[in-house]
């Protein structure tokens, strides 16, 4: 008898990869075919997509339901401003350094909040984010509660021409999204990712099989925090102005992100992508209606949660058994014609 073969890719996933590669090339060329507004919108979409993928990694795989990720978005944003204004760093260097600093900062934060479980954890993270907000509001060099703007000189250091800056800013966002998705994907495909998925399904069994749950979650938390801070830096590089309320907004950086992940399908890689698209479709069509837009958003959240708790991708997957990102293993035993 021949030995069975183990494969991971499926037909659907291979096709998806080819389409994704083509789409990536088209997207990378966007500065030559898209208008300025589209470019900026797409940049924002990519950054939200990155945040969603990161939050999904934490909540959907590591079971860390945080409502305090704005802590690191804001931290990244503020570090961009602080390191460029006072440290004289190039913005891109500042953003990368912000990621490193966020990673360092997330360790003591984790030591504190990992003591909490479930809803306590969620609220603990929120309080930590509030502490970040109020602390940055006390730093008068960064404008205190009123915030500060990124000096024009620093923005110009990115590129001389306006279109150059816009293209660069777009590519940074695209690059960030591609990096985040690739990293999350490769991580989940690795042994560690397998461990993380195991933890999600049963902590008792996971620790009995040699998985250090605390450390695995810590790693996820630290890496997610670092990436989130980088995305935060990029977001505020687009906004050019930062204030504690904007930087640490629970609605903008966490509630909307949770919304995206959950309507798309939590615990899947495809979910955040679909959720981001849906969210921006809603926003672009309705945002001018102000209160109505937000009420619709609230209603969509409720309806999706009640009718399709696994999100849109959950529906699709249950229906068609599809997997675009080949994470699972298939054992092929049908060597002989039976």
């Amino acid at each position, binding site marked *: 008898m021949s030995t069975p073969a183990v494969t991971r890719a499926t037909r659907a996933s291979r096709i998806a990869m080819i389409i994704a590669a083509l789409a990536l090339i088209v997207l990378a060329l966007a500065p030559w075919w898209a208008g300025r507004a589209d470019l900026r919108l797409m940049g924002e979409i990519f950054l939200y997509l990155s945040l969603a993928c990161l939050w999904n990694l934490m*909540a959907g795989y590591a079971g860390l*339901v945080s*409502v305090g990720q704005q802590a690191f978005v804001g931290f990244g944003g503020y570090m961009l401003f602080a390191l460029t204004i006072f440290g004289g760093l190039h913005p891109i260097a500042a953003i990368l350094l912000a990621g490193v600093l966020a990673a360092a900062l997330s360790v003591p934060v984790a030591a*504190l909040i990992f*003591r*909490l479980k*479930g*809803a*306590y954890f*969620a*609220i*603990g993270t*929120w*309080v*930590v984010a*509030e*502490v970040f907000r*109020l*602390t940055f*509001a*006390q730093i008068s060099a960064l404008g205190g509660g009123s915030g500060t703007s990124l000096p024009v000189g620093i923005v110009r250091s990115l590129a001389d021409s306006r279109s150059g800056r816009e293209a660069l800013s777009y590519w940074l966002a695209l690059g960030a999204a591609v990096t985040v998705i690739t990293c999350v994907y490769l991580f989940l495909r690795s042994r560690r990712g397998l461990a993380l998925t195991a933890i999600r399904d049963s902590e008792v069994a996971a620790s009995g099989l040699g998985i250090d749950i605390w450390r695995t979650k810590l790693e996820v938390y630290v890496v997610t925090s670092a990436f989130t801070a980088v995305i935060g830096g990029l977001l505020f590089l687009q906004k050019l102005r930062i204030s504690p309320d904007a930087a640490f907004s*629970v609605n903008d950086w966490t*509630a909307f992100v*949770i*919304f995206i992940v*959950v309507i798309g399908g*939590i615990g899947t890689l495809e979910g955040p992508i679909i959720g981001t698209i849906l969210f921006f479709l809603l926003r672009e069509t309705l945002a001018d209606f102000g*209160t*109505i837009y*937000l*009420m619709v*958003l*609230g*209603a*969509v*959240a*409720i309806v999706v*949660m*009640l009718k399709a*708790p696994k999100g849109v991708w959950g529906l699709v997957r249950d229906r068609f058994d599809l997997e675009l990102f080949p994470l699972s293993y298939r054992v092929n035993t049908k060597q002989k014609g039976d």
Partner: protein
Amino acid sequence: MIEWVNAVVQGILLGGLYALFAAGLSLIFGVMRLVNIAHGDLIILAAYLGLSTTVLLGIHPFVALLIVMPAMAGIGYVLQRGLLNRTLGDDILPPLLVTFGLSVIVQNALLEGYTADPQKLNAGAIETASVAVGGLSLGILPLLTFGMAIVVIAGLQWIFYSTALGRGFRAVSDNQDIAQLMGLNKAHVFGMAMALALAVTAIAGILLGVRTSFDPAIGGGRLIFGFEAVIIGGLGNIWGTLAGGVILGVAQTIGAKIDPGWQVLAGHIAFLVVLAVRPNGLFPRVEH
């Protein structure tokens, strides 16, 4: 010295308000493990209902409670049975997202209905009345609020521990399946719990509206204090919630005494310190 005493006393009184924000949360958190993100906005909704009643009927805000409390209780019951019951389970995400949606809807509906203008409930002379106690001037309204917090919490304690309804709450929160076997319809019990919680919310909303101006957007800030009071006190412990509110209030006024910028920060830090030392809060209900 007297300033510090003043800060502590004012903090304790402030804690009464926080305990009122938190009592309803504590109840539903304790009974159904529901994290209600919309709680802050429901407090504001109650304040607006109070406003409409006082304006329409020309009655005192405290009298309006007679209308607002049953109204909020009704809203609570319908909300729970129509919507929130379907989100309960081990996963904390569905209730989180659904109540977030609810929060957004309530907030924006209030904005549509009442505009963003700050509003206030006018309670007349009681708002500014005070008594002098040992060199301190204490407002009647904060004293009343604190007294109300004690009454509400004692009342909840009584309902919880001395009535058939309370027995139902405890039984369902201990073990939903077995409670069903006893003939308790958990959907109804949860509905009653939410009704009671929102009746308390009505008191909190009216007292808030008398104490300060409110607009549709200020619910979120109140929510986090409520959660902190609940968690500091310990899940499902109603008197603990009062203690939690007081700790939060005192931490805030002491923090503010050092530097006003630290007022809220000091409250949050007190919360984190408590959690670092006692992750289950100060007085958690003994777990089985």
